[in-house]
């Protein structure tokens, strides 16, 4: 905890974070119905990955890129929160290094200013 009062501007301004193109988020909280893919499977852009029941709909979420399925952070029947990274599709040509752990998108941010990092963590969930 820093005893410097958070600057109101840094409090409201969110740092830019580059979104990983292959990460599939929950756009809304819901229940996972079915998963169609397995880890290591090759997928094309637009291929359905899983269904998320929310807003009176079995939403089919599709791959946003051509790539290989990396981490699958969900199982059928699981209730997920908004902005959770559910499936990570690794773009073609990128080596699969380590199994990535389920992490909410908001925590994956890299901050430029170290001082801000501490404050930021409090303001973000």
């Amino acid at each position: 905890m820093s005893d410097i009062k958070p600057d109101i501007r840094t409090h409201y301004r969110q740092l830019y974070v580059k979104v990983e193109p292959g990460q599939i988020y929950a756009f809304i909280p819901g229940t996972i119905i079915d998963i169609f893919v397995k880890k290591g499977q090759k997928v094309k852009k637009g291929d359905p990955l899983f269904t998320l029941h929310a807003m009176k709909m079995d939403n089919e979420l599709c791959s946003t890129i051509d790539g290989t399925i990396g981490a699958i952070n969900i199982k059928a029947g699981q209730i997920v929160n908004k902005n959770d990274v559910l499936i990570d599709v690794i773009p073609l040509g990128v080596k699969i290094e380590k199994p990535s752990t389920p992490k909410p998108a908001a925590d994956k941010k890299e901050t430029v200013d170290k001082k801000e990092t501490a404050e930021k963590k409090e303001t973000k969930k």
Partner: protein
Amino acid sequence: MVENMSINRKTQELKARMQSLLQGGGEKAMEKQKATGKLTARERILELLDEGSFHEYDLFIQHSGKDFNMDKKILPGDGVVTGTGTINGYPICIYAQDFTVAGGSLGYMHAKKICKIMDHAMKFKVPIIGINDSGGARIQEGVNALAGYGEIFFRNTMASGVIPQISVILGPCAGGAVYSPALTDFVFVVDKISKMFITGPDVIKTVLGEEISQEDLGGARVHAEVSGNAHFFAESEMECFEQIKALFTYIPWNNTKKAERFAMKRPKAKDYKINQIFPTDPAKPYDVRLIIKSIADNSDFLEVHELFAKNIVVGFARINGDTVGCVANQPMEMAGVLDCNSSDKAARFILFCDAFQIPLITFEDLPGYLPGVDQEHAGVIRHGAKILYAFSEATVPKITVILRKAYGGGYIAMCSNHLKADFVFAWPTAEIAVMGPEGAANIIFKAEILGAEDPDAMRKEKIQEYKEKFANPYVAASYGYVDAVIQPSETRKYLIHALDMTRSKVVENPWKKHGIPPF
């Protein structure tokens, strides 16, 4: 004899003068422009317009900069090419900034040329196309450059809703320059070529310490997918020109004319079968664009804002030869909810159609507005209100087809009978109710459910009861909120008839200087 010779000499002189000016920034600069995959300003105009139709004006304009040794410099055409021509035979006015001349920077005379061609467009009531490729304000000309921008913005605003205004971003468009495209009706961008931002990466780094590339900050993809500033995205300049030509087949020259009528072509029934596209299970998603194509002439549909806020689909189609503007919920994307961005996107499209006498056809299938703290805090109330405002205010023919779900505020917003739709048709699969069966049963039968021996079984029973009673089109039809419950296969027939019936529709909104829409 003597006179003829003198004319020849004068002609030669004109040719020579033009020759040097048509070189723009010179061969080297032209090569540099081409090396980046870009066409030059004149090439762009020639590619876009009908062959041989382009007529250039103000070639001999000279810049008016006096300070910083600018008076010694010659800037051919002052960095912008202006003229008139035709697209698909349509008369249009056009300008294209020439990056090879002083980086396409905008000085006083440069702006004056643009304003002149914009004034022509307004006088002649023809569309204006602006091709932007400019480093920004010409700093050496100081406040005169700012004056130039201001004059252009004013004209953009005055022309709004009178003539179609098209902006094509084929290069950088930074600082104040971005506001001219923002004020126009359709913005076209090309991957890797278009760059738009108020402050560039350098300023952002200096002031905020954040590092970002031009492409990530304001590239074509960003504006087509994230910010929504761009309406059409193309992979190349040539594809972009094709998109513009396609758009011009759907829209009229000005707000006093109707869009050109084309010969009727039947939809491609073999490729688009409603039975196969449309799932009756309300929890199954589908692509609503295929429904539109199954109904549209030749199954043609020109989507606007294709990559932005994909949970609503807007675009132009033809029905029985007439241009119509389609607004449709997209169940395939975020269950088709209305949220801040999709409301904004739809409202703007509705305003365009209303201004240019294009009938509106709404295809409705949505669970409602998107709940969530971020939506509420982002202003889903005021953004969502835009769609209500736009549909209510529109006086063009308004026809609504309720395909499946029509719940709560979303039902009202999607051009319902109450917002003065001329005709509301519902498919037998429609569910028109105040909220979904699950939610409604929990509220209405709260006491029964809690008091039951097996509350879960009771809840299920009550949900089913509510579903059977209210999740259909017949309750709304019994009050006259739905004009006809129709078979899906009859939709085109009903739409053609409705368009014919409303052809000379006259509705006068109360006199006002202008309304105050929830911007």
